[in-house]
């Protein structure tokens, strides 16, 4: 296999904030792995700073944030701002979790590429990341 022709998409899957519900994040991580991506899984309770530093060091194309605590309107804008500060504004940001419709519109306005709510299929997540990441 020629490595130059085979550039896997690198995705950070992260759980910012204090909720400990990581089943969704693990399912998405597994689905992205099975779709041929390199998934960097950071574990629970990550601060926005930790997540952005991970995206930087891992040179990730995308970051998937899983939030079930209700704190998304605090955490996500902070992560988006830090990404821009670090010159990582091109990284595709998706959010998954229990996000009310009004907040979805606002998050997208702030720079989130897509929001996946309960019931979204893993295929939808995979397809979205594939199409959003342009190398």
């Amino acid at each position, binding site marked *: 296999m020629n*490595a130059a022709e085979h*550039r896997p998409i690198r995705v950070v899957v992260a759980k910012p904030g204090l909720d400990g519900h990581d089943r969704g994040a693990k399912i998405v*991580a597994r689905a992205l792995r099975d779709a041929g991506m390199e*998934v960097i899984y950071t574990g629970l309770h990550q601060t926005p700073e930790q997540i952005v530093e991970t995206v*930087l*060091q*891992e040179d990730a194309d995308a970051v998937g944030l899983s939030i079930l605590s209700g704190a998304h309107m605090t955490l996500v804008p902070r992560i988006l701002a830090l990404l821009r500060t670090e*010159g990582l*504004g091109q990284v595709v940001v998706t959010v998954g979790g229990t996000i009310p419709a009004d907040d979805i519109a606002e998050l997208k306005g702030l720079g989130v590429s897509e929001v996946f709510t309960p019931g979204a299929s893993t295929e939808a997540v995979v397809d979205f990341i594939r199409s959003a990441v342009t190398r």
Partner: protein
Amino acid sequence: MSEATAVDGAGLARQLLAGDRRALARSITLVENDDPHGWEIVRQIYPHTGAAAIIGFTGPPGAGKSTLLGELTRLERSAGRSVGVLTVDPTSPFSSGALLGDRIRLSDHFLDQGVFIRSMANRGALGGLSEAALQATLLMDAAGRDLVLLETVGVGQAEVDVINHADSVVLVLTPGSGDSIQALKAGVMEIPDVIVVNKADHPLADSMVRDIRSTLALGPPRDWAIPVLRTIATTGEGVGELLASLTEHRAHIQANGTLTRRRGSHLRAEVLSLVSRRLRRDLETALVREPGFVALLEQVVSRQLDPASAAAAILAEVQPRNEHASSD
């Protein structure tokens, strides 16, 4: 692509040498992807390499390599040394995807600018590392890391590539993972400079340490007696002793010339491996486009021609003057 990553290899090399973390991250991606810019970067930074100490960690999955590495990083940082960590996890042979989870054990260090952690997928390499591991080590070295810690995938018995990359090799084992016969076998048991029995609060830890020591005693005497240490990585117990052993080992190999010899053989192995990888890729790319190859394959599939004879026929085409072509 962002501002910093849009620049050419030379620009990235300059930024990397100045210690820019984003340039380092992007450069590792480029060498991993076998991108020509990546090779240009390595060419430029190569004269600035050689100062970092490279320590390899290997051992079975779940032995505690990442946790141990995290604790060692803590000690190195408190001694004021900057650390680069390269951790390798396996790529799926089915989807070619990978789940890289070693960072979880290192999250205490995410915000320390003196620690740079990079997860790599092995991308099909079988020796416990990835093809780009040595190049990535050079990049971290050139970016000014005093120490590069290299963690292999969880290995079985025979994945020993780490000896071609590291100045010192630590083998991490856990109690209850086999008797003295396992410790006698060839392969990973032959490669370490330091052996760590992690999870040493396990009831079988003492007998494990005894087994390993008695096995080592059966071998010929060496000028470096391999220490067998007990650690509990989750509490940090014994990690100070590990650091002391590694420091002692480094002084030893520096004094007796082993370090220079080892590095020479690492680089020799890397050059040979690059040549064979590139030849292999070029050959495979050329072959699949060759109608004669397809015809030969069909003969093999229909059992008219055996695989070795087909290979000999191809080699006769590719290397008509090479007398050794069929001996491999």
